[in-house]
């Protein structure tokens, strides 16, 4: 989340037409205080029973299910990065590209 915060402008079009939602099993109060302490600008959603994580194949009990889904304006999955490597610069580059691709007009090559 720190890298998301620090690179927010470049990765997420400075929040214009892009909504970032961090989902975890933490209570919403925990997420809020953590976000306040660290200055995270994004939304959080609390999924304590992992009902949503299961919908997204992100609840098999392993600690590395840091999956990221980029959802286009049409509500469809535009890109997904499974087991996002928070320590890899390439992962953020890939994420930034995937987000940018959803913001360019249709007609580009896939």
């Amino acid at each position, binding site marked *: 989340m720190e890298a998301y915060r620090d690179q927010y402008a470049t990765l997420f079009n400075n929040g214009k037409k892009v909504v970032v*939602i961090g989902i975890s099993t933490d209570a919403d109060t925990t997420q*809020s205080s953590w976000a306040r302490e*660290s200055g995270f600008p994004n*939304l959080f959603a609390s999924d304590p029973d992992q009902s949503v994580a299961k919908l997204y194949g992100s609840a098999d009990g392993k600690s590395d299910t840091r999956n990221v889904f980029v959802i286009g*304006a049409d509500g469809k999955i535009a890109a997904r990065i499974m087991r996002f490597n928070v320590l890899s610069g390439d992962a953020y580059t890939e994420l930034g590209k995937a987000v940018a691709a959803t913001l360019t007009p249709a007609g580009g090559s896939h």
Partner: protein
Amino acid sequence: MRTNGSHRAAFIALAAFMAAPSLYSQQPAAAPVPGSAATAPTVGQAAPDFSLPGATRFGLLKDPVKLSDYRGQTVVLAFFARARTKG
């Protein structure tokens, strides 16, 4: 008593007969573990809608966070393990 030859032949035939199904039938694929990456939606599929309690650095959100509310925008949905872990 003429037993050896015909019994052996019968046994071989029986063994071949019993082995045949496993030679030709395929093992059914194991069902994917629920919640595992194999069950994740893929590119091009509709993102499953959800409605969850939400929060920001300013406090708890009054209304739930509902994915369908953001139709028309790009949504980055990031699952992470637990707050206060690295990343």
